[in-house]
């Protein structure tokens, strides 16, 4: 397939891996920020092609995984109401709340629909004026423009029965939280290509300088990742800490300006709680006051009382910060599997634990 096969070409990939080997002289620990990148790595076996000196640490860039338990419980409460059509991306349905998940609410009669775009949820609100249609807006900067557009459209259309449960998070504050952690071992970042396609990479420049860490904005295909890793190792070996752009076919320094403008019309930056990590200041989006009529937390104000407590054995917070690998968790593959997940990292198709489980990496040692 054009624009895909070229980036999966076995010969080019082997050559790129060889180039990485030829320049690596020291031990390096690097983090791929985005869960999509983690999946490509584990699914195609990229880590098996790298020299032993390079350790890949899987980053916090899975929006489903970092959505706090409390927010899931709020979603479950709203979705259980008979006057609600609750819409979500498919990934969220199996994420465990404190007592159940969206699938089990659906089995109990909840009207829950998987949509592929928040704009489809707006259409549902138009078609069902007697129902309250709620969209579960989860994601990083990548999904923010479409979510912002949905709220914007709902307001223009005067759709008072459309609201959004917002759990939007931002990548740069999470990267800073990783760097500030006393356990941090990350020396360089493979930055998230699709987040940068929206936001550009200007905002990463001060971070690279402050922490003296190199970053390479990287795509999601195997060849993208190997090229990104090569560029990052080259910087580390040469003692540089700059922002470089491997993913130039999708990313510019300033990003997608109309998309950023749409975000800024609808959202403002606020503090956010991250599952397993805790509150990170200024790390997410919330709806501006003028869109309060479309804010599910205000429309369904009774959910504000919900408080939740995380599983005591799940170490997803440490996994998300790159401190632990999924299979280093005592519950991994035992109490915790994709069928009985204790934490969201085991559920989402982008979660590091699910990647390790589904692609059987933990078993390969014994195979």
């Amino acid at each position, binding site marked *: *397939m054009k624009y895909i096969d070229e980036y999966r070409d076995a010969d080019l990939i082997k050559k790129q891996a060889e180039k990485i080997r030829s320049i690596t002289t020291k031990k390096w620990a690097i983090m791929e920020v985005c869960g999509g990148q983690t999946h490509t790595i584990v*699914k195609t076996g990229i880590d098996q092609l790298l020299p032993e000196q390079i350790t890949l640490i899987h980053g916090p860039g899975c929006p489903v995984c970092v959505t706090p338990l409390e927010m899931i419980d709020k979603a479950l409460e709203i979705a259980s109401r008979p006057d609600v059509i609750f819409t979500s991306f498919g990934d969220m349905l199996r994420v*465990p709340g404190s007592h159940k998940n969206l699938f*089990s609410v*659906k089995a109990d009669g909840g009207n829950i629909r*998987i949509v592929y775009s928040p704009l489809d949820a707006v259409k549902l609100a138009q078609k069902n004026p007697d129902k309250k249609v709620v969209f579960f807006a989860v994601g990083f900067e990548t999904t923010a423009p479409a979510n912002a557009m949905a709220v914007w459209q709902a307001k223009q259309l005067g759709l008072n029965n459309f609201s959004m449960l917002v759990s939007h998070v931002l990548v740069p504050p999470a990267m800073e939280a990783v760097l500030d952690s006393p356990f941090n071992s990350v020396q360089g970042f493979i930055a998230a290509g699709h987040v940068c396609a929206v936001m550009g990479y200007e905002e990463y420049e001060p971070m690279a300088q402050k922490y003296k860490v190199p970053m390479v904005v990287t795509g999601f295909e195997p060849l993208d990742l190997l090229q990104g890793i090569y560029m990052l190792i080259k910087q580390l070996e040469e003692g540089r800490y700059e922002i470089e752009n491997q993913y130039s076919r999708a990313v510019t320094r300033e990003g997608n300006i109309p998309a950023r403008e749409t975000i800024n019309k609808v959202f403002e930056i606020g503090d956010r709680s991250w599952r397993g990590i805790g509150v990170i200041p200024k790390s997410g989006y919330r709806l501006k006051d003028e869109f309060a009529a479309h804010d599910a937390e205000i429309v369904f104000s009774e959910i504000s009382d919900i408080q939740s407590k995380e599983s005591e054995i799940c170490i997803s917070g440490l996994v998300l910060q790159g401190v632990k690998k999924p299979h280093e968790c005592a519950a991994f593959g035992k109490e915790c*599997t994709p*069928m009985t997940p204790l934490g969201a990292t085991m559920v989402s198709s982008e979660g590091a634990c699910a990647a390790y489980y589904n692609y059987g990496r933990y078993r390969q040692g014994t195979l």
Partner: protein
Amino acid sequence: MEQPNSNKKIILGHGSGGKLSAELIESLFLPAFRNEFLSPLGDQAVVNINGIRIAFTTDSYVVNPIFFPGGSIGDVAVNGTVNDLAVGGARPLYISAGLILEEGMPVDELERIVSDMKRACEYAGVQLVTGDTKVVEKGKGDKIFINTSGIGVVDADVDISPQRVRPGDKIIVNGPIGEHGIAIMSIREGLEFETEIQSDTAPLNHLVRDMLNVSKNIRWMRDPTRGGLSSSCNELAKSAQKGIILHESMIPVPEAVKAACEILGLDPLYVANEGKLLAVVPAEETDAILEAMHKNPQGKDARIIGEVVDDHHGFVLLKTTIGGSRVVDMLAGEQLPRIC
């Protein structure tokens, strides 16, 4: 923390053909009905009646929507049961049909479905010899559900069984994978997209006959429907207690299936088929079997995609195109709801 207990109520994943379905069978159905014919959990049971080996199978069809590019629920209801018999090495002969209709279903839609079933029976060479019709109140069904059962005869010299699978055997697929699942997805509400992909629904009994004509040593066959290629290969690995190696570069995936999977975030290995078969054959007879398959329209694109090894018993390993490897596991829950 209390687990979200999927066991207390039936959820969609219990019908996906993956791990939840297996759990239901192991914990509920097998303990209740365990016997020598049921316990192997094949797509069909082979019973011996007066010295004649009869293959017997049943399947229910709830596909939504009922008409899709390349066929209808009527086609899959006949072909699915024919194929479950054929992959057991049987010659399908007779089928039954039970129709559950929803009040308000347009009769002309039922006529189209019956006409598709008639054509499918003729093409497969089976006769529909008994049937039943029930109507449920509006809202209690989804237009139409069909159950079909079928019987066929297994010739004395045919022995299809996972116990015959040997290290070194080759794994063959008869053509490109993922077409049925993607054809269904392409017209599902809220997800409509343009694609030239049509369902691959087809009877496989003629192809199986051609294969058995050149080799009586075909070890094992399965039609990878719900759960796709990966589920069938996992069932093979577990029932044969051998290791399976698949080569990503050898598995035929049509461009349009690849494209749709990229967009929707699906893995073609888990997408449903309705006219595909997997066969495990002895290495030395592979060429002859492939040659016979290539002469049949259902097998013209047949090819080797992997082999059986005496290692990592019970597991399926995929060698990736770029030189890595990974375990291919069974699907935990739903990938595509109600595909067949």
